[in-house]
C-alpha cells in the first residue's frame, strides 16, 4: 500500500510540475497564471515529499516486496543505514533528485524579490520542467516503487563499503549541490527568453549558486574523507572519473559564485554568467550520466544499465540543446555595459573565472577522452593523475598566485602598487616557506612552490582582514565585531583554500608508507614512532563479524593505543578495512590490517604517515563555512532592504 501511495504521489507531482512549467512559461504577462504556477510549485514539493517519505518508510519497514528495498536493504541493518538506504541506490537517489528539485522550485516561487514578474514566472516554469524531466526519468526508467514477485525473505543488503555515516550524508549533499545548479539554469533560461539579464536577476541568482557550491564542497569533502579512512590506502583524491564528475560542477559553481558578483555589482559579463549557469547544470547532469550509465570503469559505478545512461544523455541533450540554442540566439542581444579596467576588482573576478572555467574544461576533456578514443576505435587508454596533476595543478596554482590581490583591489579601478605593498609581508612569508621547504626537502621544487602558495593564500587572506579591521573605529574588539559578514565569509573561503593547499601538497609530497609482517608482541619503527602489534582478536558487530588488531604506539616516551579492523559482512564476498588513524598535530599515523600469514601467527600490517592530511578536510570545511556565511550575509542584506 505504501509503495502504491509513493508511486501515485510521484505521478501526481509529475503532473503538477508539468502544469507549473506550462503556466509559469506562459504566465509572464499574466499575473493570475504566474500565481497559479507558484502555488503549483508549492504543492508539487509537498506531494514529492510524501512520495519520498513513503520510500523511506518502505526501507525502514524492510518491505522486500519492493524491488529497490530487496536489492539494497537487509533486516539486520542499523536503522540509520536503512533510512540512508533509501538514497544509497540508483532508483531512490533519482527520487531524491526529483524531490530536491521540486523543493527548490517551491523556494524559488516564494522568493520573488526584486525580479520582474515575467522573469520570475519563467524561472519557476523552467524549474517545473526540470522537476518533471527528473520525475519522468525516475518513474519510467528507474521506479523505486516497483514491486517484486515473489518477494524474497531477506534483502541482499547495502554495499558494506557504503555502510558508513559519511556515506549516508554524501549523496544527499552532492544532490543538493547538483540540483542547486538547476535553479541558476532555470533563471538563465528565463533571462534568455526574456532577453534581459539585469542586476536584480544576478541578485536572485547569487544565493542559489552559493548554496549549490557550498553543498558540493561539503559533499565532495565528505566523499574524499570517506575514501581516506574507508578504502584503506591512505589516499583522498585520485582523479577518478566519478570524483571528476562532481569536481567539474564544483569548479563551474565556484566560477559562477564570482561572476554573479560582477554581474550584480556592475551589470557586466551577464552573458558569460548565463553561459556558466547553463554549463554548470549541464555538468551536473553529465555527472549523473557518468555515474549512472556505467560507461566508466571505476570503483563508483555500481549501477550498470545502458538504457538509463541513454535516457540521462537525452535529458542532458535536451537541457543543453535548448540552453545553447537560446544562448546563441539571444545572448548577443543582451545589453552589456562597458568592459572593465585591467586592474580592478572585476578584472580579478574575471581572471578567477578564467582559471576555474579552464580547469573545468581540462578535467572534462581528460575524463571523457578515454571514452572518445575507445568510441573511435583507438583502443583503451587511461588518463589519470599524471595528466591532471600536470595540467590542473599549475592552472590552480596561477589562480592562487593572483587570488590575494582580488579582495584588496577596489571596483572599477584598483591600485596595484598599494595592494602589493600591503601584501608584501604575506609574500615574504611565502618566500620563506619556499626556501625552507627547498632546503629541507633536498631541492624539490614542486612541493616548495605548493606550500608557498598555501601560505600566500592564508597570509594574504589575513592581511585583507587586517586592512579591513584597521578602517574601523574604536577598540580592537569593536573593530572586529563591526566587520561586515561578507568580509568574514570571503576570507574564510579563501584562507580555507590555502589551508587545503597546504594539506594536499604536504600529503602528496611527503607521505610515507611501509608494509610489515608482525607477530603479536613484535614492533616496527616508522617515522619516529615505534608501532607494536599487541594482539589480534575476533569481534561481532550488528551485521558483520570483524578481526580486530590492537597496537601500541610509542613516540618520544608517550604511549598511545589504536586498533585496525577487517570486517566481514555475510552479504558481501569482500572484507572491508576499518583503518586505525592516530591524529597528531603534524599528521596522521594510519594503520591498515592485511591478511594473516598462512601457518603462522603473523599479520601483514600496512603503515602510512600522512603529514598535515587533516588540513585538507579543515580547509574544505572552512570553504563550506565561507559559503554558508556568505549566504547569511545575503539574507541579512535582503532583510535590511539594501
Amino acid at each position, binding site marked *: 500500500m505504501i509503495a502504491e501511495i509513493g508511486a501515485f504521489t510521484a505521478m501526481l507531482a509529475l503532473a503538477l510540475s508539468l502544469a507549473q512549467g506550462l503556466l509559469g512559461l506562459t504566465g509572464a504577462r499574466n499575473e493570475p497564471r504566474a500565481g497559479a504556477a507558484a502555488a503549483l510549485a508549492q504543492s508539487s514539493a509537498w506531494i514529492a515529499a510524501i512520495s519520498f517519505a513513503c520510500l523511506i518508510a518502505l526501507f525502514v519497514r524492510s518491505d522486500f516486496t519492493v524491488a529497490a528495498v530487496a536489492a539494497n536493504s537487509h533486516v539486520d541493518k542499523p536503522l540509520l543505514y536503512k533510512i540512508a538506504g533509501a538514497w544509497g541506490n540508483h532508483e531512490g537517489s533519482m527520487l531524491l533528485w526529483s524531490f530536491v528539485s521540486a523543493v527548490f522550485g517551491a523556494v524559488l516561487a516564494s522568493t520573488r524579490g526584486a525580479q520582474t514578474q515575467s522573469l520570475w514566472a519563467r524561472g519557476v516554469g523552467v524549474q517545473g520542467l526540470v522537476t518533471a524531466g527528473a520525475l519522468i526519468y525516475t518513474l519510467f526508467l528507474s521506479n523505486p516503487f516497483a514491486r517484486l514477485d515473489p518477494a524474497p525473505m531477506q534483502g541482499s543488503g547495502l554495499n558494506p563499503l557504503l555502510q558508513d555515516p559519511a556515506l549516508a550524508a554524501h549523496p544527499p549533499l552532492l544532490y543538493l549541490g547538483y540540483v542547486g545548479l538547476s535553479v541558476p539554469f532555470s533563471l538563465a533560461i528565463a533571462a534568455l527568453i526574456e532577453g534581459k539579464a539585469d542586476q536584480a536577476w544576478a541578485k536572485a541568482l547569487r544565493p542559489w549558486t552559493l548554496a549549490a557550491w557550498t553543498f558540493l564542497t561539503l559533499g565532495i569533502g565528505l566523499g574524499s574523507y570517506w575514501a581516506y579512512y574507508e578504502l584503506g590506502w591512505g*589516499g583522498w583524491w*585520485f582523479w*577518478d572519473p566519478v570524483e571528476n564528475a562532481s569536481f567539474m560542477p564544483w569548479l563551474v559553481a565556484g566560477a559562477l559564485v564570482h561572476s554573479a558578483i560582477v554581474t550584480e*555589482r556592475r551589470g557586466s*559579463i551577464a552573458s558569460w554568467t548565463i553561459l556558466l549557469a547553463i554549463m554548470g547544470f549541464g555538468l551536473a547532469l553529465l555527472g549523473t550520466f557518468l555515474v549512472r550509465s556505467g560507461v566508466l570503469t*571505476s*570503483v563508483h559505478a555500481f549501477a550498470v544499465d545502458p538504457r538509463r545512461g541513454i535516457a540521462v544523455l537525452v535529458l542532458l541533450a535536451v537541457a543543453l540543446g535548448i540552453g545553447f540554442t537560446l544562448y546563441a540566439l539571444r545572448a548577443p542581444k543582451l545589453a552589456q555595459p*562597458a*568592459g*572593465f579596467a*585591467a586592474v*580592478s*576588482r572585476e578584472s580579478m573576478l*574575471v*581572471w578567477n573565472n*578564467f582559471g576555474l*572555467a*579552464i580547469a573545468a*574544461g*581540462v578535467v572534462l*576533456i*581528460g575524463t571523457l*577522452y578515454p571514452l572518445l*578514443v575507445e568510441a*573511435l576505435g583507438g*583502443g*583503451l*587508454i*587511461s*588518463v*589519470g*593523475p*599524471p*595528466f591532471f596533476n600536470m*595540467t590542473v595543478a599549475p*592552472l590552480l596554482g596561477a589562480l592562487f598566485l593572483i587570488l590575494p590581490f582580488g*579582495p*584588496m*583591489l*577596489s*571596483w*572599477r*579601478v584598483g*591600485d596595484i602598487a598599494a595592494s602589493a605593498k600591503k601584501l608584501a609581508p604575506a609574500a615574504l612569508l611565502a618566500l620563506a616557506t619556499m626556501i625552507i621547504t627547498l632546503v629541507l626537502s633536498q631541492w624539490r621544487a614542486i612541493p616548495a612552490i605548493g606550500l608557498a602558495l598555501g601560505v600566500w593564500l592564508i597570509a594574504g587572506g589575513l592581511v585583507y582582514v587586517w586592512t*579591513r579591521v584597521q*578602517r574601523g573605529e574604536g577598540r580592537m574588539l569593536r573593530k572586529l565585531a563591526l566587520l*561586515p559578514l*561578507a*568580509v568574514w565569509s570571503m576570507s574564510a573561503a579563501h584562507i580555507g583554500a590555502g589551508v587545503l593547499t597546504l594539506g594536499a601538497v604536504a600529503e602528496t609530497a611527503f607521505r610515507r608508507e611501509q*608494509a*610489515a*609482517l608482525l607477530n603479536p608482541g613484535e614492533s616496527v619503527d616508522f617515522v619516529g614512532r615505534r608501532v607494536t602489534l599487541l594482539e589480534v582478536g575476533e569481534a561481532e558487530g550488528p551485521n558483520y563479524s570483524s578481526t580486530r588488531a590492537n597496537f601500541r604506539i610509542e613516540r618520544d616516551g608517550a604511549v598511545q593505543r589504536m586498533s585496525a579492523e577487517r570486517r566481514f559482512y555475510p552479504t558481501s564476498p569482500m572484507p572491508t578495512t576499518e583503518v586505525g588513524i592516530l591524529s597528531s598535530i603534524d599528521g596522521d599515523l594510519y594503520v591498515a590490517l*592485511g*591478511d594473516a*600469514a*598462512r601457518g603462522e601467527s603473523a599479520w*601483514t600490517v*600496512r603503515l602510512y604517515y600522512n603529514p598535515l592530511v587533516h588540513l585538507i578536510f579543515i580547509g574544505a570545511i572552512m570553504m563550506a563555512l565561507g559559503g554558508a556565511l556568505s549566504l547569511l550575509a545575503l539574507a541579512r*542584506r535582503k532583510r535590511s532592504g*539594501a
Partner: protein
Amino acid sequence: MSLLAILVAAAAPAVLGDPAQEARAHSLQMEIRCVQCENEPIAQSTSEIAADMRTLVRERIAAGDSDSEIRDFFRERYGDFVLFRPPFDARTWVLWAAPALFVLLGLWAVFTMRRRGAADAPAFTPEEGDR
C-alpha cells in the same frame, strides 16, 4: 598462492637501496595502472599481479632503465591502458594540446570582453563593493 604473493610483496619489499632510485620506483608505480583492479595504481593495490608489477619496476630500475624505457616496457606488455599518463601520439595529441588551447581561447575571450570599453569612472572603495 595469492596469499603468498601478497606476503612476499608486502612483507619483503625488494626496496631499492638507493633512496633516489626507490623514490623513482614509487612515482612510476603511482603511474602504472593495476590491470586487474578498478582504477588503482600498482603502488596502492593489494592484488597479486600488482605486487609482481611493482617488483618488475624495481628490477628495471636496478637494471639501469630510464623512466620512459620502463613506461615503454609496460606499454608493450599490457597496452596503453596500463599507463595513467597517456602517451603522446596521433590519438592523444588533442588531449595534450587542449589545456594550452583552452588557455589561448580564454585569453582571447578576456581581452575581447575588456575591449568592449574601458572603465574610466572614479574608483570605488572596496567597502562600497561589500555593501
